[in-house]
């Protein structure tokens, strides 16, 4: 049986009374998910992409005509907002500017600016990847007015062509005469600004309101229908992001980084402890093995060592290679020794010293270096101070050395 794949995107939006979760693929109609409270909602664990649609109370949605190059629209929109006293940031996360229509070098522009309102999330563990305007999640009727409820408040959305150009919550909580008057004022104001085209229809996504009264008040024939299912916004369609979400994301990233460093440090520490413990265990194992081997071989080796000691003790008498004549011959072995005048030579089986004179310092250095590197004399480890140069350029040298005790 084929396993149905869960939709990868989740949309959290303000319903008529409470927050609702919807799921679906980007650009297509969503399926209803869970419902939350009126104070906020949260995203589920399994969704890969999370979109938060904020209510109209979190935005300024304003249309305006700007004359100029399209690439300057954003700057003009920011100036327009400043002139209207709307305080907001100036980057893409705070203000979205989109050209809706153009005529004679002028552009009808929709400006969506985030208000400084707290984001109604009941759980900040999973933050949204994108934030958009609630009304942008629905297919609105062209050149029309749409009235719907959003968390208990009436909201009016006005389109120019298929594009949303204006959206605001109404002051009145019911669709009564006050609400209709407010709607007329909005339309009048937008008409004065020249941003409102010819309105063709008025759609009610709510059961409220008297159709006749609305027709008389607005001059449009209302059409009442069910609120359609929202459409999942395309990926990257909105760059808006409230500041508290950005801060929360940075805080979570900081915590994640701290957690990562702590875990890394812990892992490194554990690895070091394990490494030292393993190395120590191996070294102890090797030491015990060597101790056993040494203990096993000790009686035989001890006997041989005893024989060696006896031989070396009598070596000055029985071993010609250890006699002083041989050592003296070894001292005369280097070629440079022919020029040397030995003034003092002293030898015992354990040490040797030599004082002499050479016609020049270079010869003295050559000879002392030859004595140091002589293989036959290596056991004495001869060393000495630099040659002393006399006034006639001759040099006196001195070498001393002793037998290492281990060699015996």
């Amino acid at each position, binding site marked *: 049986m084929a396993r149905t794949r869960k939709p990868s995107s989740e949309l959290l939006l303000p319903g008529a009374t409470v927050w609702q979760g919807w799921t679906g693929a980007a650009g297509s109609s969503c399926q209803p998910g869970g419902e939350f409270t009126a104070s906020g909602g949260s995203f589920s664990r399994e969704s890969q992409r999370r979109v938060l649609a904020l209510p109209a109370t979190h935005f300024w949605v304003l249309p305006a005509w700007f004359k100029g190059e399209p690439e300057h629209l954003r700057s003009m929109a920011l100036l327009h907002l400043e002139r209207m006293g709307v305080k907001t940031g100036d980057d893409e996360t705070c203000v979205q500017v989109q050209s809706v229509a153009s005529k004679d070098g002028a552009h009808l522009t929709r400006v969506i600016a985030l208000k400084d309102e707290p984001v109604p999330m009941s759980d900040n563990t999973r933050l949204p990847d994108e934030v958009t305007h609630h009304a942008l999640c629905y297919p609105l009727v062209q050149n029309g007015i749409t009235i719907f409820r959003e968390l208990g408040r009436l909201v009016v959305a006005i389109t120019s062509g298929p594009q949303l150009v204006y959206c605001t919550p109404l002051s009145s909580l019911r669709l009564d005469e006050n609400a209709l008057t407010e709607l007329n004022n909005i339309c009048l104001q937008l008409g004065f600004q020249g941003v409102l085209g010819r309105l063709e229809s008025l759609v009610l996504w709510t059961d409220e309101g008297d159709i006749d009264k609305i027709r008389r008040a607005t001059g449009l024939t209302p059409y009442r229908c069910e609120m359609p299912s929202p459409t999942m916004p395309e990926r990257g369609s909105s760059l808006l992001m409230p500041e508290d979400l950005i801060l929360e994301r940075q805080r979570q990233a900081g915590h994640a980084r701290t957690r990562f460093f702590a875990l890394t440090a812990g892992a490194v*520490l554990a690895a*070091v*402890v394990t490494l*030292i*413990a393993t*190395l*120590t265990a191996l*070294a*102890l194992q*090797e*030491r015990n093995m*060597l*101790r056993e*081997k*040494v203990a096993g*071989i*000790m009686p*035989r*080796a*001890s*006997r*041989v*060592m*005893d*024989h*060696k*000691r*006896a*031989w070396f*003790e*009598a*070596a*000055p*008498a*029985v*071993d*010609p290679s250890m*006699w*002083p*004549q041989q050592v003296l011959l070894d001292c005369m072995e280097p070629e440079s020794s022919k020029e040397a*005048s*030995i*003034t*003092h*030579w*002293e*030898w*015992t*089986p354990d040490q040797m010293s030599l004082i002499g004179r050479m016609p020049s310092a270079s010869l003295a250095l050559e000879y002392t270096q030859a004595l140091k590197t002589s293989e036959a004399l290596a056991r004495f480890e001869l060393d000495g101070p630099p040659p002393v140069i006399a006034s006639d350029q001759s040099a006196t040298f001195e070498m001393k050395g002793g037998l290492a005790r281990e060699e015996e």
Partner: protein
Amino acid sequence: MKKSEKVLLGVFAALFFGIALIGGGAFALRHYLEVRDEVDLLRDRLASMNLAVAQGADWAARSVWLEENAPRFTSNKDASAKLLERVSNLAQTHGLMIGTTELLEPARGVGADGLPLEDEEESHFDKAAIRTILTGVSEQALFAWLHDLQKPQSFLGVTRLQINPTGSDKTVNVEVEFTQFYYEKAVPKVTKAN
């Protein structure tokens, strides 16, 4: 718990764990290095022991030769007298005039502090030694004399030789110590191996 108390607790906990970690790590590392040093020492010792065991037959043969050929004297005086007589006779043979002769007491090894060593290893041989001083002797006669004196079978060895040329006629001033190695008793001296 107040935030300041939490911070203080965190600082103390971090300090405690830090000190414990550093101390424990240093201790573990030192212990490991000590074990490694001991392993290296044991490895070297094992290698030298293996080498000794491999050469065991040679050294045993030399030891047998030493025991069979080492001269036997009844006392140190006897050995010293024989040594003195041999040295003097051969000196006369080579026309050398011994200036000073001195009998040397068997001396114990001396440590770095100048005091006799307490734990010096037991000698395998008894020794009798003399020091002779010769002045203005010919180099050639000196070495011929030394050559005649030193025969492996005689167990008579030069244990110190100091030569200072006089600077004329290839003559030298010499100070030589001769040692006679011997066994004092009829049977070989007890050694560790036995």
